[in-house]
């Protein structure tokens, strides 16, 4: 128990006194995951919208497919991507293995189903009349879509935040296709894995604390906007 207190104390010191290596890792984690979520969101939400309003045959099956991908293990995505990106693989010429880009791509694959499934649920909550009214008033399609997105912005935001939570906390993809290169592809989770293997628990716990605080902030933010949504309705 004493050891736990001591390591936590050391961890806080590392965080507060701005250990450069530690903060490099934190920034890298955020940079990669933000890129992944920002690049994925527009496509995923448009697909979610299409599935909702398109009413084309097979849309149910596509949705079920994305729902089942919600719980895909990250190491499976990592392995899948590794096989694709390895030098002998189909995309080997792109030289993407062990780069940040590979991590971004992997995390995009990971958060895409989350955004589609949760985005779909959010858009479904929109009043169908919004679409009809906007169209009747002569709004172009893209504007109508944006209007609907604005109507359900809280739900969409919740979807994006959940997706972000999923990618920032994953370790399998980052480890496999990033390679845990210091200063280049080492992020919070792979660093924790490494530091633990070296027995440097303090640094691991410090990074864990960053992730935990992020989880708290995201959850608090989510419940805040949900309470706000209650007021507006």
């Amino acid at each position, binding site marked *: 128990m004493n050891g736990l207190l001591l390591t936590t104390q050391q961890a806080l010191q590392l965080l507060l006194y701005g250990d450069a290596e530690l903060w490099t890792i934190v920034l890298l984690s955020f940079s990669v995951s933000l*890129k992944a979520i920002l690049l994925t969101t527009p496509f995923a939400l448009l697909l979610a919208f299409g599935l909702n309003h398109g009413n084309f045959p097979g849309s149910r099956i596509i949705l079920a497919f994305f729902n089942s991908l919600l719980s895909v293990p990250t190491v499976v995505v990592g392995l899948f991507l590794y096989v694709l990106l390895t030098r002998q693989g189909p995309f080997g010429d792109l030289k993407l293995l*062990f780069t940040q880009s590979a991590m971004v791509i992997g995390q995009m694959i990971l958060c895409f189903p989350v955004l589609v499934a949760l985005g779909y649920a959010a858009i479904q909550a929109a009043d169908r009349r919004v679409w009809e009214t906007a169209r009747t008033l002569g709004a172009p399609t893209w504007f109508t879509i944006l209007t609907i997105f604005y109507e359900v912005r809280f739900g969409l935001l919740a979807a994006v935040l959940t997706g972000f939570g999923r990618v920032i906390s994953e370790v399998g993809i980052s480890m496999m296709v990033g390679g845990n290169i210091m200063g*280049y592809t080492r992020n919070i989770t792979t660093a924790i894995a490494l530091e633990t293997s070296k027995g440097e628990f303090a640094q691991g716990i410090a990074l864990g604390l960053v992730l935990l605080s992020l989880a708290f902030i995201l959850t608090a933010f989510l419940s805040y906007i949900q309470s706000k949504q209650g007021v507006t309705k």
Partner: protein
Amino acid sequence: MKKTLLVALLYFFCAGLVQAEPIRLATTTSTDNSGLLKVLIPYFEKQTGHVVHVLSVGTGHALRMGQDGNVDVVLVHAPTAEMRFVDAGYGLNRRNLMYNDFVIVGPADDPANIHGENNAVRSLQKIARGKLLFVSRGDDSGTHKKELYLWKKAKWIPELSWYREVGQGMGRALQMANELNAYTITDRGTWLVMRSQLSLKLLAEGDAELYNPYSIIAVNPARYPSINYLGAMSLIAWLTSVEGQNRIRNFRLEGQALFIPTAIKN
């Protein structure tokens, strides 16, 4: 506010794009965890302007990365596997770089009574005869290969009842041996880094069988024309130069010299 956000976004997307072709070095956990590369690489980068990306995995995995052309150069410690790697045409220009040694560690009360034993094979036989817990890396690393070789020499096939194959890096394996009060075999570097956190004791050392030579091998550019062969060769050249070798010799961990350079014969 919007402008700041835009600049921040642009920064996120562009950072990492502006970078010279890096040299990808696949190496073993022992060279990386000991801190040796952290000391050496910055000198090399400063003098040559190259950027080195270090991927630290087990020897087997590192060689596999080289075989697949996913890295430019490998720094490993498993002579037999290295020879196969070169003979198969995956790598070339193999140079001896340095050596250190393996040691056998175990619980402080030493139930196998191997303390002070200078014959590694005999030590393992004692552990096996007593059916005492033994942690094996089990990850096809250089250390694992050495351990399997020693079991073969000891003419003993480890049994599941006391032999724990953990499939993890050296640091993790030492921790597990510590928790299980088990024996294990480790490179001296990782042992020195970790020993303050462990209640295990260094029990057997000094056998010529425990010699642990490291080599550096460039990946064959004929197989993968797009790899950074020139970068790999300049890293090899620097590490085997007088300066590189001196820096290896002068590297200290907890006040102890850890690696003895072997590239240049006097």
